[in-house]
Each structure stands twice: as structure tokens, then as C-alpha cells.
């Protein structure tokens, strides 16, 4: 073997390694029949190259295989995220995506609109017929809504009983027509749980406008839907900016109200209730007020809806009860009250849904040494009618304690006469709206007389509210109405003033 020959072979070896290291792992180095050291190096490198090549290839094959699996898993995940499992409609997340795309696609042209629907009383279906029946209703509703909306609109189920239709490139009139079709489509009875159900929906519509993004579209349609639901069944509302302002105000009010509860901003005023037969003060109605740091003294109308939305109704109800009963206890001690004097407290349906209300009241009465008969709970006629078995049970428990139940706003609801007799109530309060024309309108007088007769024949005692003139008080006295309250006697008073009034020599008023 010559040196020159070896040099040439080394050269070849290096060239071969250069090719391999450039990435061509299929290259093999020449091995001569000599099978000497140079050949051994070449053989070793060839074997390593083959090993490496094989590893790379199997790695690439594995990566390709895993990539296919990963893509399939991603596609499946996307399908799951974008589809409502129960109905097969688009999901909330897909609706958001599509709303954003529709807004972007509209540019300066016709903006997309959104129709939101929420089935009325759906919870009742679920609660009374079971979840399977509820699901059947939702599936059928989905089919009908899809058929009514027709392509190409995106139809989504946002969860629960809430549906959405994203309408693109339509004039407002056309959007409203679609909303009306959707509402009508639900009205044919749906078979579920062995019966045929009539389904209606509340509908909120938001027309698109330039500058409004997809999220705002959904938010505003939700506000409109909320408004529609507030107005009762089968109602459609189109979003207006006033709704937005009101919603914003409510949000602030709710936040403030939470603070109010803990920082003693709530207080009670007391309006005297007069016995028309004796002219003496027979009781008082506790009325909640909110001393708002910036808005001043607020009446309950201004904040009780917000309390309801915030879920604070029960907490506020408990606060009112505890404060009013404590105050009655203090008046019992000084100046001393007749056992016939009663403090009236208004409660909301939500309070009466709590089975622990009666024990709670019992505890407070004992703690403040107040006779049960010195407390009267006022519940609106509508709350009683809609309350169901829990409300009826709570009323019975309160009555068993000896607490009086009073039907508030009597004459404004739709009580049936037979139902009225069956109630555990002892008093009925005639609404102010019936009293207003009493002294001037002869027909109204006859009407009030009839109502009083109705109340008396059901074995109840009548309290008239909203008395503003002497003539009204006299008329009611003639008609044998037992009790009355109103500005004519006294406006609602702060505690100190009410206490002073009770300390008056004979407690007479008016």
C-alpha cells in the first residue's frame, strides 16, 4: 500500500463524511477488499449512518402519525366547543366567534343583528315533568327555530333555555319578521313528558350599528331580553340605549346596596294605621328607606328590583323584620303599647319561600318580648296567588305562631273569592288606586263598598291605604272599613317622630 494510495482513500473518506454531514444520510463510504483500518472506519461510519437514517425515518414517521392524530383531536375538540351537545346547534362560543366575524364582514354596510330567545317558565317544565321532558322541549324548540329562521343565519343555544339567531345583511323590519316567525314557531304545542305543552318565549333584539362589536351585540340583546322577560310572557323587546343606561344604573345600585346593608344606610320609617271606629292609632306599617350617600333618601320602589336581581331580597327582608320587631319591643317598654297594636311588615315572595322564616320570626319575637299578635306580615295578592305550596306553608306556620297575615294591594290582582276564603289571612289592605276616586266618584264608592263586603264576608278585617282627604276617611268609616292609613293621618315618620306620636296622651291621630 502506498502513501499516495492511502491519501486518496482518506480523501474519499472525508468526502463521504462531508456528504453525510450535509444531511444526506443515504450516502455510504466505499469499503475496499483490503478490509484494513481505513475500511473499518468506513464500515463503522456506514453502520452509524444507517442507524441514524433509520432513527430519523422512524421519528419522522412517528411525528407524521402523531400530527395526524393531533389534527383529528383538534378538529374534534373544535367541533365539541362549537356545538351544543343536546340540540346540535351552534354553541355560545361559536356564536361569539360568528358575531365577531359578521361585524368584521359588514364593514360599513348593513350590520348584523342578534335575536335572543328565552323560553318562558322552562324551569317549571323541568321541575314538574323532569329533565328528560325538558330536554325534549329544548330539542324540539331547536328544530323549530332552525326551520323558522332558515339559512343562512347562525342559530345557537347559549345554555339552559336560551337561544340566539344571528341575522346578517337584513333591514330591521326583516329582522323583526324573523323574530316574529321564531316566536310563532314555538307556539304549536310540543309533546313532552306525556303531555302537549304550549311554549312561549321572551325575545330580545339588538339591531347592529356601526362601531358595535360582537360582544356588545350579545350584551345588548341580553339586556333587551331581560326587559322582555320582565314584561311577562311572550314578549319581544328591541334594545334601546335607555335600557343600557338603566342596566348600568342597576349594576351600580346593586353594588351600592350590598354596601348599604353592612354600613347601616338602610332605615325604617313608620306610617301610623288608624282605627276608623275609635280614631286611635292601632298600629304602624314599617317602610324601608335607603339613605343613599349621593342619591338621598330612596323609597323601596327605587331599589327593591335591584335587590331582587342581586339576590338580596331575603337578607333585606330579614333585616326589616329584625329591626321592626326590635322597635316594637322598645315601644312595648316605653311608652308601652296595647297588645292590640300591631306593626306591619312587608315581605316579598322570596322571603316566604324560605321554610325557616317562621322560626326566625319566632326567635325575634321572643328576643324582643313582642306578642305574636303585635306583628302583621303583609304579602301582596299576586305573591300569594303565584307563591305555590311553599308560600302557603310559610303563611300557615306564621298563623300558627299567632302572627297576623294581611293581603296587601287587595283588588289589584285576580284573587278568586273561594281562594280568598281558604287563605290563612286575617286582614286585607285595599289598594290606594281604589281609594283615589272614592270621595268624588259615586260608582267608585259602590265598587269599594262591594270590595269591603267581599273582605268582610271572607271573615277578614279591612285596612284602606292612601287616605289623603278627610272625605275619604269619612266615607270609609261609613262603609265599615275598620282601619286606614295615608297622608291625611300621617306620612311615614322617622323612629323618633313615631315614638313621640305614640307617647302622645291618648294616641289619637288625624
Amino acid at each position, binding site marked *: 500500500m502506498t502513501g499516495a494510495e492511502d491519501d486518496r482513500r482518506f480523501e474519499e473518506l472525508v468526502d463521504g463524511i462531508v456528504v453525510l454531514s450535509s444531511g444526506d444520510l443515504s450516502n455510504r463510504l466505499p469499503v475496499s477488499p483490503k478490509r484494513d483500518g481505513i*475500511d473499518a472506519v468506513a464500515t463503522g461510519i456506514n453502520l452509524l449512518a444507517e*442507524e441514524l437514517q433509520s432513527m430519523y425515518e422512524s421519528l419522522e414517521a412517528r411525528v407524521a402519525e402523531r400530527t395526524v392524530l393531533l389534527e383529528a383531536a383538534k378538529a374534534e375538540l373544535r367541533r365539541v366547543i362549537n356545538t351544543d351537545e343536546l340540540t346540535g346547534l351552534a354553541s355560545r362560543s361559536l356564536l361569539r366567534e360568528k358575531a365577531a366575524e359578521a361585524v368584521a364582514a359588514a364593514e360599513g354596510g348593513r350590520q348584523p343583528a342578534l335575536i335572543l330567545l328565552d323560553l318562558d317558565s322552562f324551569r317549571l317544565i323541568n321541575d314538574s315533568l323532569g329533565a328528560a321532558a325538558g330536554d325534549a322541549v329544548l330539542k324540539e324548540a331547536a328544530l323549530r327555530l332552525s326551520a323558522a329562521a332558515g339559512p343562512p343565519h347562525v342559530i345557537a343555544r347559549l345554555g339552559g333555555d336560551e337561544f340566539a339567531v344571528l341575522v346578517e345583511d337584513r333591514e330591521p323590519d326583516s329582522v323583526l319578521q324573523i323574530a316574529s316567525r321564531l316566536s310563532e314557531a314555538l307556539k304549536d304545542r310540543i309533546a313532552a313528558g306525556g303531555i302537549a305543552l304550549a311554549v312561549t318565549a321572551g325575545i330580545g333584539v339588538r339591531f347592529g350599528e356601526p362601531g358595535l362589536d360582537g360582544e356588545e351585540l350579545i350584551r345588548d340583546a341580553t339586556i333587551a331580553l331581560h326587559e322582555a322577560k320582565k314584561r311577562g310572557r311572550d314578549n319581544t323587546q328591541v334594545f334601546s340605549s335607555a335600557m343600557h343606561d338603566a342596566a348600568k344604573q342597576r349594576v351600580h345600585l346593586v353594588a351600592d346596596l350590598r354596601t348599604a346593608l353592612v354600613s347601616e344606610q338602610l332605615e325604617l320609617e313608620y306610617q301610623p294605621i288608624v282605627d276608623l271606629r275609635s280614631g286611635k292609632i292601632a298600629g304602624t306599617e314599617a317602610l324601608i328607606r335607603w339613605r343613599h350617600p349621593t342619591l338621598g333618601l330612596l323609597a323601596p320602589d327605587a331599589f327593591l328590583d335591584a335587590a331582587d336581581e342581586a339576590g338580596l331580597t331575603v337578607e333585606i327582608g330579614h333585616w326589616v323584620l329584625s329591626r321592626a320587631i326590635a322597635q316594637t319591643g322598645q315601644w312595648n317598654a316605653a311608652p308601652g303599647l296595647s297588645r292590640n297594636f300591631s306593626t306591619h311588615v312587608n315581605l316579598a315572595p322570596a322571603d316566604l319561600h324560605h321554610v325557616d322564616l317562621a322560626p326566625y320570626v319566632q326567635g325575634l319575637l321572643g328576643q324582643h318580648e313582642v306578642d305574636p299578635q303585635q306583628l302583621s306580615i303583609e304579602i301582596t295578592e299576586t305573591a300569594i296567588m303565584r307563591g305555590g305550596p311553599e308560600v302557603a306553608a310559610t303563611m300557615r306556620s306564621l298563623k300558627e305562631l299567632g302572627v297576623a297575615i294581611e293581603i296587601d294591594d287587595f283588588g289589584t290582582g285576580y284573587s278568586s273569592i273561594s281562594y280568598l276564603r281558604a287563605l290563612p289571612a286575617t286582614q286585607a289592605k285595599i289598594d290606594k288606586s281604589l281609594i283615589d276616586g272614592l270621595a268624588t266618584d259615586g260608582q267608585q264608592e259602590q265598587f269599594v263598598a262591594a270590595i269591603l263586603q267581599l273582605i268582610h264576608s271572607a271573615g277578614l278585617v279591612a285596612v284602606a291605604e292612601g287616605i289623603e282627604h278627610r272625605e275619604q276617611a269619612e266615607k270609609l268609616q261609613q262603609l265599615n272599613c275598620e282601619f286606614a292609613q295615608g297622608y291625611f293621618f300621617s306620612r311615614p315618620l322617622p323612629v323618633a317622630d313615631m315614638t313621640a306620636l305614640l307617647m302622645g296622651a291618648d294616641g289619637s291621630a288625624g
Partner: protein
Amino acid sequence: MPDTDVETPPGPDIVSLGFESDGILRLSWARGVVIDAPNAQLAVDRVNEICQGRRAPLLIDMATTASVSRAARTVFAQPCDASAIALLGSSPVDRVLANFFLGVISSPVPTKFFTSNADAVRWLTSQGNDGG
């Protein structure tokens, strides 16, 4: 790709295969053969055929082998009737091939590389020749 290579059909790459008087089965490859998977499988089949289920020590003369493919090595990794395998070579190329073979696969039976025929036979005999 790679654990099959069928370019070379099983053919006359095995020069001889048979028992020697000492009870050792000796396999000699043709000069310059590239042992690929079909070749390897042929060798294993032939060994099994001759042994007929009896375990026998195997001496593979690879002194003239050009290379052993990756696929072939996996064939040799499967159990056959050989009770022990001695790889016999002489050149540095043989040494690289044999040690690559030994290092990469885990042989199911004791396997060792020798440069001396006598050493190989001695080792095989000491491995408990039960095929004689």
C-alpha cells in the same frame, strides 16, 4: 422504511452450513456478501432446518462479509436453534461489523466475536454444547 430490504433475493450467499465433527454448526458466507434481511432470514431458517429443534452452538465465519444491514440484525435478534453464537473474523472491518452487531442488538443467546478459530471453538464448547 427500513426494517425490510428485499433488493437481494435469498440466493447462493451461504457457501456452506453444516455440523463439524466437534458438534459445532459452521456457517460460511460467500465472499463480499452484504447480509440483508432476506439473507439473514435464510440463514436462520437453514440453521433451524438442520438443527430440527435441537439446540446447537453456531460459528459464523464472517471474514469476508462486506456489511450487515440493520434489518438483518433484527432478524438475528430473534431466537433460533442456536444455543450460542461465535462470530469469527480477522480484519479490522470484521471487528467493527461484529461489535456493531453485538452492541446494537441484544442477542437472545450468548454471542461473541473472535479472531481465532480455536478460541471460538473453545468458547462455544464451554457454553454447554447440548446439540452433539
